[in-house]
């Protein structure tokens, strides 16, 4: 049975209606909380639903609007945050036992920016523990289910955020994407998901998985909503050294420009020529999207990114290496779980052994190994060199193309347990999304039709660093073409 929402109100529609007085934030909130009430026990998108607080904030917002105040571009929009983004005084767990009960004393920059724009936080969404996974099955608090089919995974690691939007619990949510953790669940749940340029959105308050790859981005029903949310959360933050020192680009104004004359490159390796395991229905939808873009005036051609074949290898050395260091701090001293031990070493060990799940332990050990003396050059060093090579190949491709196109995920949503026994099989889910994290370039997933199993398919639009405008411009066209194709099929 499907719990995916039909004809949802978009964030833009809600904000306009609330700001204009056509409706109010409280009414909007009640509608969304009612949907949560109806099916959240089955979907399990959230680790925490803040119903009372959300109602209070909606009332307060309505009062401000009544007083004539401009409350911002996301007036009254119910939103959710992946539970790896810090919220002051509100439990933030990373879906890990090791952080269970921890209440951060500060807000992530994105949380503040959304609140300042008038958005209302509804809850904290489920994820694979510390964002390590592609199905949300690694959550210490149980998996999230795909609202389109509860027997299937929502993807991951931001599965809760993707499901919360797909189920209509919120109009928009934020996820984090280290190797595809926004784009892949967006594809599997049939929503829009954006991994912005590295540094475009502040990471301050995002609990780190792999610092040089992590990036926050939105899940929404529409490309226009994603553009609006990106405008709100993007732009320079002095608290993040790796934040791009520029304001967020204007995106909403480029969406109706079409693709006439734009050059679109279809990545060969991800279209069955180099990377194995991309399913036929996903390839077919991606080809259809490319053909539709060509029909709409784009110049579409094939392009080869040979290093993309090695992206997975590079990623599974770089990300665990950084993670092994980032996750050292969970030692039972200052916050979170502590398991007793006769001395500090035993206490640290008991705490970490009890607090981390298997996937986290696997990656910590893998990363520790990749960084250890004697292996550094062979593993971590080489993986970081591959990133440079990959970035160079992308740059060369962008001499000839404005954007690139590929599948987002090799397959549609799979059944629970299908890939849990073999970590390598799970890792292969990220094969098309990882290269953008390694290069730092932006990429986003836009729904385009359905697979042979009736589940949503997403296509990925990739662009050069800081070229979000052209990426959104093309994504908006893909979205229109998908709607056209759907209309024609019906």
């Amino acid at each position, binding site marked *: 049975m499907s719990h995916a929402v039909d004809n949802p109100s978009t964030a833009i529609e809600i904000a306009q209606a609330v700001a204009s007085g056509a409706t109010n934030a409280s009414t909007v909130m009640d509608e969304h909380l009612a949907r949560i009430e109806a099916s959240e026990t089955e979907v399990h998108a959230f680790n925490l639903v803040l119903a009372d607080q959300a109602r209070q904030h909606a009332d307060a917002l309505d009062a401000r609007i009544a007083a004539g105040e401009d409350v911002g571009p996301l007036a009254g929009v119910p939103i959710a945050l992946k539970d*790896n*983004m*810090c919220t002051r005084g509100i439990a*933030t767990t*990373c879906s890990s036992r090791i*952080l269970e009960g*921890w209440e*951060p*004393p*500060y807000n*992530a920059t994105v949380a503040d920016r959304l609140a300042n724009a008038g958005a209302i936080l509804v809850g904290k969404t489920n994820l694979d523990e510390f964002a390590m996974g592609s199905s949300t099955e690694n959550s210490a608090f149980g998996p999230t289910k795909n609202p389109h089919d509860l027997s299937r995974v929502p993807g991951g690691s931001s599965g809760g955020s993707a499901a919360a939007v797909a189920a209509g619990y919120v109009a928009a949510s934020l996820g984090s994407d280290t190797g595809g953790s926004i784009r892949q669940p967006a594809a599997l749940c049939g929503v829009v998901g954006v991994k912005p340029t590295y540094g475009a959105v502040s*990471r*301050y*308050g*995002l*609990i*780190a998985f*792999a*610092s*040089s790859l992590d990036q926050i981005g939105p899940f929404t029903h529409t490309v226009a909503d994603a553009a609006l949310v990106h405008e709100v959360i993007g732009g320079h933050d*002095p*608290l*993040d*050294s*790796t934040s791009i020192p520029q304001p967020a680009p204007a995106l909403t104004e480029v969406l109706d420009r079409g693709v006439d004359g734009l050059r679109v490159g279809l990545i060969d390796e991800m279209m069955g020529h180099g990377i194995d395991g991309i399913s036929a229905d996903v390839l077919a939808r991606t080809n259809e999207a490319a053909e539709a873009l060509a029909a709409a005036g784009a110049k579409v051609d094939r392009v080869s990114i040979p290093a993309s074949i090695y992206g997975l290898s590079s990623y599974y050395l770089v990300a665990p*290496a*950084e993670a*092994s*260091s980032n996750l*050292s*701090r*969970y*030692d039972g*001293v*200052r*916050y979170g779980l502590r398991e007793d031990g006769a001395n*500090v*070493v035993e206490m*640290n060990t008991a705490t970490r052994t009890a607090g981390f799940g298997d996937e986290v332990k696997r990656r910590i050990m893998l990363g*520790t190994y990749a*960084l*250890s*003396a004697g292996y*550094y050059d062979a593993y*971590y060093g080489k993986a970081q060199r591959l990133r440079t090579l990959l970035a160079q190949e992308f740059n060369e491709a962008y001499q000839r193309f404005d954007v690139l196109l590929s599948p987002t995920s090799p397959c549609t949503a799979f059944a629970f347990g299908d890939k849990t026994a073999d970590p390598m099989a799970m890792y292969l889910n990220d094969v098309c999304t990882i290269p953008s994290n390694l290069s730092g370039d932006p990429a986003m997933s836009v729904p385009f039709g359905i697979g042979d199993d009736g589940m949503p398919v997403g296509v990925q639009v990739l662009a050069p660093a800081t070229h979000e405008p052209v990426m959104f411009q093309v994504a908006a066209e893909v979205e229109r073409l998908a709607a056209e194709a759907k209309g024609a099929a019906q």
Partner: protein
Amino acid sequence: MSESDLPEGWELVVGLEVHVELATNTKLFCSCPNMFGDEANTNVCPTCLGLPGSLPVVNEQAVHFAMVLGRALGCTVQPSVFARKNYFYPDMPKDYQVSQYDLPTNGEGALELPDGYVVGIERAHIEEDTGKSTHVGGDGRISGADYSLVDYNRAGVPLVEVVSRPNMHTIEHAKAYVSELRDILLATGVSDAKMEEGSMRVDANVSVRPTGSTELRTRCEIKNVNSIRSMGRAIDYEAHRHIDLYNNNDAPRQETRHWDEANGRTRPGRSKEDADDYRYFAEPDLLPLDPTAAEIAAIDEAMPALPQQRRRALAEAAGLVPADVALVVERNQDELALAALAAGAGGAGVVKHLINNLADGAGQLTPEAFAGLVSMETRGDLSSTQAKTVLAELVANGGQPADVAAGLGFEAMDTSELEILVDGLIADNPDEWGRFCEGDKKIQGFFVGQIMKATKGQADGKVVNQLLASRASSS
């Protein structure tokens, strides 16, 4: 405790790692106050507590201070990268320390000691300090404690670690190195360099080798020395320990040892498990530092005079060698010395009085009065005893040396008066004079003493001696 040289046939080899806390307002990577002695865990924020999601942003003043220190040590200031040094320790909030590894801000440099000996500097890199643990129960030492309490106020305080080459071969040089480095830190304002408060912490790498050998034998790193004096004792103890081991067909093993001041010995620390594998990698949350040539030139331009330059300047002006004036510079009295020299005083006299008679400060003494005093003494208008008395008066109450001398009744004796006295004395004591002329130096004191007695101490001993010598040579 003597700092005896090593037994015949052994040479000491010392390299020093000095951690310096920078005198910034805020910590290295966050805006918490960099403050010693505040109530525990009050100067903390998400970043310096290593809370999940927090990020570092480097303090521009800390980087500036680090480069100033680097230039003061003659280091190459170069593009640098922060790196993570991974190991677990409860006083380190992230269980990694942000430091610099293969690309430190300051590369090769050198530090010249007052006696002219040059100690090589390998590097001077930026890193963050750790928190502080207090050990409760047992004997207060870590191993006997029941549990520990951690305060993170110090966590994230900016440090520069200055790493010397292992080319100090005497305890005196090691001590002079630390003293010189401290003077440089104070001169540049980079740190308050208080060893007793821990804002300057010295670890000594000590080994020994047969004299004449160039090998580097197994070294031990000695921690917990909190004064220059105790460092000297620790090095001496450790070197002798190594020699004893070698003499017994044994050898030291590479380890960290701790100086036990009360018992005057070093003790082994428990070796940190797997401490050799820190898994360094470039800190992804921080960007490289790449100072421009203009920035470095501006630092050089603004550099205050450093002890070495000041010693050279004063030595040149005084006609002495730098080692002779080291104490004057260390006491920051070189400005007074230079002014007195400019006012016409002789270098030796100025430096002599500064070192012997002005250790506690110059008080009301003006450079001109100082110069006048030294000149009077040089001319023989005042004996050295009188000069010292006059100087004390000038320091206490100011004034001009001639007036003070007159007020004290120190009239310069006419040489002709002295000659009459000397000749009279010779005539009255022919036996003694005979012995004097035969070269009996002991009898010289008799003549000088008699003249002093006759003049109530106002005669200049030097002049008396000269007179006696000239009478003897012509008799």
